[in-house]
């Protein structure tokens, strides 16, 4: 099978046993790789009674067919498990070199079950793998773990995906870090690794990937790489994603003070423009990447001098303006803590901003915060709150460690209304009420509030639609986006390169040249639809229905107050209509459940259909 190693590892941590299993061509054709194979694995292997933090949960890691080939920015990988944060499908996609390293080692994926009796890590090499003791790594940060494993195995080129102390403590916001600054960020998959006593997965491979038509692929990839250096990706190269801060502020969609406002009066101070001038020390690229979007900040003075962190828009925005903080040094320190101790920056920012609002409104006292003056704008308090949250330290750390929704459940008194979540996962850095197509996409996302499942914010920010209102047609925009993004996340290619493909035909051509599968654009989108429905079926197994596809109360009940989007609010009737339009476009019933006829057409199990 071209483009694939044709086999994956099955690791039973309880038994300490590793076996090799064949990846059937039929499965590869139906689900491609990455996200698709995560959805396939979890649907087939996670049983209805499997608690996310029990040995019965399954955690898997998959590369895609293009990993290790010359396709631009194709070295990504996906990891998934039943999410301890949402209870539904949990997965993430990370950049860096893990995906291509795994393929070079001769494997397409790793499926991990059970629980190790003591801290362990998995070491995967060319054609083989072993479970190794990780007692000496337990308690270490992600960066320390990466360095120590390389030192122990005497190989600087080993790729390591590891959890920090947060994952060990099973914080439901815990992430997995590789290549220092790249994360499987969302859904708390790091906590699942921690629950299995699995500290890290280390991979080293020196093989190559055989493709179906190398000459044509090389020729086409040369052109794609040239396009990568052109205008389609220019925006990512100069300022990186923090370029969004001032623009989002200008159009009133920069979440500020826990999503109460869409503008931040100190936006200039935390902008990509300011950051580039004052803090960016290095710009880094992934393997096979012409773009280099990763901007590394270094704090030059003050109490956090020497702090280093990769800064993207979502981290900057959620730990900055959304917490009312304009001190770039404090924001950089908060990001570094999240990355090294192992917590998702988006969820961390949204959880701390919830706590700041609760504190300012009197729902949290200084006793609850262990003396911390947790006001909006207090950078020192932000840093300390993040540290305690990551380590479950004190009253505040214990309260925040499992995210905003669970913290609000504990505190009660109406604080649930300003926990900005969907499916208990914290909302990303896009304003709910001034980007309403985006909101529909976030709320219907299978993994909880997420901007990366459909990219539906694009029609809002391009001015294609009235972003302050919704209608039935938005459902198809979200649905179409999900199908295409399912392909991007299954191949896996970087979403920043989506603009270099002039059409879906070109993306389908990549699949043909790499795998030899006879796939045109129409068939490719059908695969995307299948993958998305497979993920949805997993959620249906755990009780998902229409009730789970709404934004939080603030979106409907409170008007924004700022200079640009003043008065903006989501009309509930419009939302209901758009949601029904989405289900119609997906060919699901009014409760958001796939029909048996659709599942049969897609070649999926029809048991849970209606």
């Amino acid at each position, binding site marked *: 099978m071209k483009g694939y190693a044709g086999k994956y590892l099955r690791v039973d941590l309880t038994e300490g046993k590793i076996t090799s299993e064949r990846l059937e061509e039929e499965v590869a054709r139906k689900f491609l790789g990455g996200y698709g194979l995560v959805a396939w694995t979890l649907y087939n292997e996670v049983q209805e009674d499997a608690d996310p933090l029990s040995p019965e949960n399954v955690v898997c890691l998959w590369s895609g067919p293009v990993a290790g080939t010359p396709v631009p920015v194709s070295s990504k990988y996906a990891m998934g498990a039943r999410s301890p944060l949402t209870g539904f499908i949990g997965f993430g996609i990370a950049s860096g070199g893990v995906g291509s390293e795994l393929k070079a080692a001769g494997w397409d994926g790793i499926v991990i079950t059970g629980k190790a009796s003591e801290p362990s890590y998995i070491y995967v090499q060319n054609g083989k793998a072993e479970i190794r003791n990780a007692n000496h790594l337990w308690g270490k940060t992600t960066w320390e773990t990466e360095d120590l494993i390389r030192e122990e195995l005497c190989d600087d080129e080993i790729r390591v995906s590891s959890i920090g102390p947060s994952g060990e403590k099973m914080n439901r916001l815990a992430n997995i870090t590789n290549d220092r600054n790249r994360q499987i960020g969302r859904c708390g998959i790091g906590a699942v690794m921690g629950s299995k006593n699995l500290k890290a997965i280390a991979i080293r491979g020196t093989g190559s990937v055989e493709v179906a038509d190398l000459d044509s692929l090389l020729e086409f990839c040369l052109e794609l790489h040239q396009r990568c250096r052109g*205008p389609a990706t*220019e*925006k990512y190269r100069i*300022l990186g994603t923090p370029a*969004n801060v001032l623009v989002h502020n200008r159009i009133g969609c920069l979440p500020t003070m826990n999503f109460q406002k869409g503008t931040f009066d100190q936006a200039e101070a935390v902008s990509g423009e300011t950051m580039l001038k004052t803090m960016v020390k290095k710009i880094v690229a992934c393997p096979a990447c012409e773009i280099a*979007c990763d901007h590394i900040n270094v704090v030059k003075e003050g109490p956090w001098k020497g702090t280093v962190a990769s800064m993207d828009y*979502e981290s900057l925005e959620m730990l900055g303006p959304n917490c009312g903080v304009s001190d770039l040094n404090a924001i950089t320190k908060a990001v570094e803590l999240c990355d090294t101790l192992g917590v998702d920056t988006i969820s961390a920012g949204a959880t701390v901003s919830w706590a700041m609002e609760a504190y300012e409104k009197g729902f949290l006292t200084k006793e609850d915060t262990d003396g911390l003056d947790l006001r909006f704008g207090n950078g020192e308090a932000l840093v300390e709150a993040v540290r305690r949250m990551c380590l479950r330290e004190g009253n505040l750390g214990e309260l925040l460690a499992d995210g905003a929704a669970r913290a609000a459940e504990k505190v009660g008194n109406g604080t649930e209304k300003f926990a900005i979540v969907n499916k208990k996962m914290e909302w990303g850095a896009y304003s709910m009420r001034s980007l309403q197509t985006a909101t529909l996409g976030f709320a219907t996302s299978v993994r909880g509030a997420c901007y990366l499942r459909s990219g539906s914010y694009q029609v809002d920010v391009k*001015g294609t639609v009235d972003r302050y209102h919704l209608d039935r047609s938005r459902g198809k925009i979200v649905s179409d986006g999900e199908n295409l993004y399912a392909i991007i996340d299954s191949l896996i290619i*970087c979403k920043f390169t989506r603009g270099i493909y002039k059409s879906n035909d070109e993306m389908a051509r990549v699949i043909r040249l790499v795998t030899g599968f006879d796939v045109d654009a129409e068939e490719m989108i059908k695969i995307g639809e299948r993958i998305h429905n497979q993920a949805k079926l997993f959620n249906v197994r755990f009780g998902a229905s229409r009730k789970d596809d709404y934004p939080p109360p603030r979106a409907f009940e409170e008007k924004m107050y700022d200079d640009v989007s003043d008065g903006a609010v989501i009309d509930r009737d419009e939302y209901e209509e758009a949601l029904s339009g989405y289900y119609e476009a997906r060919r699901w019933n009014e409760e958001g459940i796939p029909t048996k006829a659709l599942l049969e057409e897609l070649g999926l199990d029809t048991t849970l259909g209606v």
Partner: protein
Amino acid sequence: MGEVSIANEIVLNLVMQAMRWKVVSEESSRKVKVEFFGPFRTFSKGMEIELERQLNFDEFVSLLVNILGEEFRERAEKENTTFILNRKIVDRDNESEVVISPGDSVAFALLIGGG
């Protein structure tokens, strides 16, 4: 009498303040505020331009080209440029219908998606 003249003086001052405000207001209402973000900052952070009449998008870009140079046209006319007129993001497919009027606020930017 003294009280009357003080009162007259107050009224006169108020009238003069109102007239000054009107003058300032009329001057500012002829200006268009232009902001630049991201790669556009290589040209300028922002400026105010006096506008005698309404302009369409092409005319407005030409006006800026006179100030910022021909390179600005290349940048502004790229498909991925975002043009913001007051609080509205302009759909680039309909940019020919855009009218920039004295008193408007506009911005040029590149919007970035997630990845």
